[in-house]
């Protein structure tokens, strides 16, 4: 609370100072439980992670816990597997979000037209997003991408790709295909909301003036969609970067670590390798990287929100 704030309230209400302070707390009271809860459950663990990251500690050897300083961090930066999984994470997140967004925009443009059964088409299109991620990953691993019995290979057989083993030959791509399938509807819904909020009279005016559809799209629709696309990319990235289910279910990060992303790799270190200290150090590195990226993302989100609130 700044020094200025109470004076303003007291001046307006002409009341003694302590009362104004009490008023301030009454105002704040409703938000405190949520705030305190969020701090305890989400922030405290990170502080503890920070502490663990300075220790050498194997979960399977009781009493092995001791202070080692920054050794774990040195190990993390020397760890070529960590670097590889970091790159995988960037490819997976970037690839999934971009491809899903491109398809999402295309589908949204189709759904913005009137045609027979549009509601059903929309319903069918959002279904992949509603499928439990674990179930979706299993579905793709077995019935879709299985080398012998999968539908994908059956469809591709006329093209000479009969028994392609997707999950071991193109593991990263396979996981991405599954995630793109799940996340395209999300992008589509956001972009569709953007399209439907576009003032139609401008579009009609442009088309009456003889503007070509492509020009209208580029000059009017795309700039209007920009903040919806940005919002979709940021929110999609928040969810996709944390993806664990698809990697765990489809490839277990393999072969080797070729399809492991950071969440999966850290999980492996902590719960299969029992290396608490090292896993914690990796966690901290990821958090720092996330904070850097998120700072930009948050600024963008706020711009978007103030934009929509003005428009509303």
């Amino acid at each position, binding site marked *: 609370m*700044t020094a200025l*704030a109470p004076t303003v309230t007291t001046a307006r209400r002409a009341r003694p100072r302590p009362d104004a302070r009490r008023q301030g707390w009454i105002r704040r*009271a*409703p*938000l405190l*439980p949520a*705030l305190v*809860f*969020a701090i305890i*459950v*989400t922030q405290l*663990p*990170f502080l*503890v*992670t920070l502490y*663990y990251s300075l220790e050498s500690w194997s979960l399977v050897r009781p009493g092995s816990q001791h202070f080692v300083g920054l050794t774990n961090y040195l190990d993390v930066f020397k760890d070529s597997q960590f670097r590889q999984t970091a790159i995988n994470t960037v490819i997976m997140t970037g690839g999934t979000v971009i491809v899903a967004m491109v398809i999402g925009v295309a589908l949204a443009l189709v*759904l913005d*037209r009137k*045609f*027979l*059964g*549009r509601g059903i*088409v929309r319903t*069918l299109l*959002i*279904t992949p997003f509603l499928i*439990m*991620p*674990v*179930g979706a990953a*299993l*579905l793709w691993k*077995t019935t*879709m991408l299985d080398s012998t*019995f999968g*539908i994908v290979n*059956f469809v591709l057989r006329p093209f000479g790709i009969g028994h392609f083993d997707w999950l071991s030959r193109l593991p990263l791509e396979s996981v991405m295909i599954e995630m793109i399938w799940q996340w395209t*509807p999300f992008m589509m819904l*956001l972009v569709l909301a953007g399209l439907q909020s576009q003032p*139609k009279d401008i579009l009609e005016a442009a088309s009456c003036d003889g503007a070509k559809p492509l020009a209208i799209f580029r000059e009017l629709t795309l700039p209007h969609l920009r903040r919806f696309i940005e919002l979709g990319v940021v*929110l999609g990235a928040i969810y996709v970067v944390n993806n*664990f*289910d698809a990697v*765990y*279910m489809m490839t277990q990060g393999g072969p080797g670590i070729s399809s492991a992303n*950071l969440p999966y790799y*850290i*999980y492996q270190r*902590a*719960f299969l390798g029992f290396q*608490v200290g090292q896993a914690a150090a990796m*966690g901290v590195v990821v*958090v720092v990287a*996330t*904070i850097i990226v*998120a700072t930009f993302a*948050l600024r963008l*989100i*706020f711009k978007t929100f103030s934009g929509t*609130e003005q428009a509303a």
Partner: protein
Amino acid sequence: MMARAEQIRTEPGLPTGAAGQPARRRKRRRSNSTAWGIVGWFAAILFFFPVLWMVLTSFKTEAQAYTNTPHVLFSPTLSQYKTVFSSGLWPYVANSAFATIVSTLLVLLLATPCAFALSLRAVKKTRDVLFFFISTKMLPVVAAIIPIYIAARDLHMLDNIFTLVILYTAMNLPIAVWMMRSFFLEVPGELLEAAQMDGAPLRRTLTEVILPVVAPGIAATALICSIFSWNEFFFAVNITATEAATVPVFLVGFISSEGLYFAQLAAAATVATLPVVLVGWVAQRQLVRGLSFGAIK
């Protein structure tokens, strides 16, 4: 919008020379909309196909599921579902339902007053608080799982459904705060002013003025939180073992213990997925709003 455009064009005031034009244009538009329809339906079938195939496979025998040339016509059997339901699915469903319902109620209990204090009776630093909530969503959960696991172990709360309830509440709280705030901001200012002028006490303003406007928002928020809790896997697989395991964990256990049986797996996945799909279909509009943290109405 289409209808309005046509209305303008066929208005009686138009010069008679252009009389033939609207009809032709309408015809072109109709064939155009057929083309868009074909594209739309094609995309829908493509995207929906894996789901359809899952459901079809769940009604097959394993022998029918394992074929080089996929069977489309077959006599459906319910035997896979019988196996799934008799293999101890219900405790998992009960755990999932409990974690979902209780955590969603907790989220609403915490988020609604919080959102109120960030919108209608906005505190100073509202921006900072909002910032804080959404930033917790950005921090990777994997970095928090180790201390959470160790704390749960030391408190003897591993494999306890209440641990999941707490974690799911924290996971959904930021979404709920943002979303509820966007609903509170929709309460018309005049209504509030009028209530204040009449000297209505805050409690009455809350229950009689604000609540009716915000009630659909509470429902929408509950829906989104339920979907995320029902589908959550990472915490569930790490924190639970046998007692508190949820439906996604059940699906995983299915492969490792039974080997890879496509048809059985498809039946289990269908059962696990069905509740959320049905709810999501019914509430498409709220889905958009929830997913965008309330940014899109």
